[in-house]
């Protein structure tokens, strides 16, 4: 079995362990054994995006040291992948780590990207007989340019009906510290997103990013909406009802 290293975002580790476990399962089905370097913590994105680059830099350097030994790194988040691949080179410009960071960035993959482009495995034997809409997370779509990859995987899931909602490419309003600092704007954006998902009669909103989903789920519940969110890895690890 080929091996990959698993990069689990810090908040997923603490708040959504099931997404990590399902990512392991999906990778196993694709023929990969995953290793979880236990020294990993956070990639530093919250500090970086809020402007605290001096606090983000040591975390980025730390991340490079922890993951440098691995040939391939897989992450169930487009946003955290983006931080490493797209933003580390700028954050670490002029440091001794810069070249290593750039090199590592090319070896870190978001889960759907890894499955479709690297492993070339889209048929994973999953079943999920529900009406599902896909939310394009900003970082997956506009930074990693992943539009078809997650949809391709979803189309292969038995019983799953994929419906497109209007403005699927619009931000859900999470945005890291933005969600707290400008909570009312964040909520209005989430409310619009929730309305768009409800409008197409979806039972579930799925995405590559657990942070978007946590925000959208919170908004949906406040709206007393019947729609729920589910991470892509959870759908792909699903063996179907009653199994």
């Amino acid at each position, binding site marked *: 079995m080929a091996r990959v290293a698993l990069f*689990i975002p*810090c908040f*997923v*580790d*603490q*708040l*959504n*362990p*099931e997404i*990590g*476990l399902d990512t392991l399962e999906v990778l196993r089905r694709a023929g990969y054994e995953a290793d*979880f370097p*236990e*020294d*990993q*913590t*956070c990639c*530093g994105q919250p*500090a970086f*995006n*809020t*402007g*605290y*680059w001096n*606090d*983000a830099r*040591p*975390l980025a350097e*730390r991340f490079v040291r922890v993951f440098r030994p691995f040939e391939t790194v897989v992450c169930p988040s487009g946003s955290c992948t983006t931080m490493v691949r797209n933003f580390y080179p700028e954050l670490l410009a002029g440091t001794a780590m810069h070249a290593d960071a750039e090199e590592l960035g090319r070896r870190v993959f978001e889960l759907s990207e890894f499955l479709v482009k690297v492993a070339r495995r889209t048929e994973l034997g999953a079943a999920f007989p529900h009406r599902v809409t896909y939310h394009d997370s*900003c970082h997956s779509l*506009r930074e990693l340019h992943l539009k078809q990859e997650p949809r391709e995987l979803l189309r292969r899931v038995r019983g799953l009906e994929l419906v497109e909602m209007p403005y699927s*490419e*619009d*931000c859900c*309003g*999470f*945005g*890291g*510290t*933005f*969600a*707290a*600092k*400008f*909570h*009312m*704007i*964040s*909520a*209005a*954006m*989430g409310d*619009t997103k929730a309305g768009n998902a409800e409008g197409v009669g979806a039972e579930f909103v799925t995405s590559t990013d657990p942070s978007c989903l*946590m*925000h959208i*789920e*919170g*908004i949906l*519940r*406040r709206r007393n909406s019947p729609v729920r969110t589910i991470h892509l890895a959870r759908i792909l690890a699903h063996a179907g009802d009653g199994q």
Partner: protein
Amino acid sequence: MSSAAQEFLRSAAAKSADLRHRQVLRRSVDTYFTSLGTGRTRFIDWQEARRKAQAIKWEAVNHLDKYLLQFEERVKERGGHVFWAENGEQARNYIVDLATAGGVRTVVKSKSMVAEEIHLTPALEGKGFKVWETDLGEFIVQLRDEPPYHIVTPAMHLTRQDIAQLFKEKLGGIDTDEPEKLVAAARVALRRAFFTAEMGISGVNFLVADAGMIALTTNEGNGRLGTSLPRIHVAITGIEKVIPRLEDLAVMWPVLSTAGTGQAVTCYNTLVGGPRGKDEVDGPEEFHVVLLDNGRSELLADAEQREVLHCIRCGACLNACPVYRAVGGHTYGTTYQGPIGSVLTPHLRGLHEFQHLSSASSLCGNCSEVCPVRIDLHHHLLHNRRNAVKAGERSWSERMAFKAFRWTMMHPSWFASLGWLGRRALRAAYGLGLEGTAVDPLRAWTKERAAPPIPPRSFRSFWKERRGAD
């Protein structure tokens, strides 16, 4: 927190909760995106057109000295005047003095965001001149005594019924909500103004360096009436609006109109290069171009953010911005709204007062994606944030929070222990029904959303168990 930031928060809260507002903007933006979709397909390669437009603006902005002087020379050759204004005050004084010396009583203005930037209309009105906004959208917001809501569509926040009501109150004798009749009523009022005005003030879409002409784009023809009928024409613009060559318009005009409204080309595109010539039958007796700096040179000196000066003010980033669509144009409290405004305003009016705008974004990147001159807008928002931290513009508590964050994340065992402790505390608190109350530790989150279910175990604890079992 600056007073502008407090006002922003207050207004953002009100607008975000205003569902009617959201709906009005959504309808407008739906129409825009439909036209934009069609508009882009008229290009063989829209992305290539953007790259070409970016290259043209890059060349111009990186050789501003050369192209502006070339522009000035050509205009002077034809008997026009060029005034270099370092700031708003110099520009206002120059125009007010011109109006006074020229015995002007009435001024007709076509759309100009630079005029808004330097508060030109209030300055003229303060000196007793009557100023008419002649762009329909601007005319409407002027009647409402409001600043423009959007840099391209100033009355975007109003419905046909709102406008009908306004005209009924302000124009007298009009009681209809038929668009044709409303436009006709505005036209009657504005035609009178065009024929009486002694001074026409216009903005500039492009300063064409090699031709020494200003290029003006309107959909209503008000631009060319206002620049040809009155005795004096004053064009006011920021120094960054220059393009090197006349032929560059072949790219810039369709790119601007497509990004702005989805049109293949805007209805009226006018080039003006000087006052009425000897053998010409119409045109102004005097032609003045006011070139405004007002902080732009400082931005030019900033290699990292210089490309912000490439902006052609098409408004695409506003339409694409989910924050703009949630809070609307007035909430920004700035001349330029939306992503470009949030990037630019701290440079024009100070980081201290306006850094909050750069944080009021989810950094979704849709603005950079639609920008026809490919300005990396969301990246510049991030740079402004970094600059604000560097300049000590953030609160003590935020700085300490990130120190603590860094400290925790540098030590995997502390991260794991604090995570464990935090989850236990939250599970206990939520068990007591404290979710969403004032003592909820996740108050910042649960003010607007349900708390996520807090799991008893972390992923790493599962991992350890598995590893142990192997």
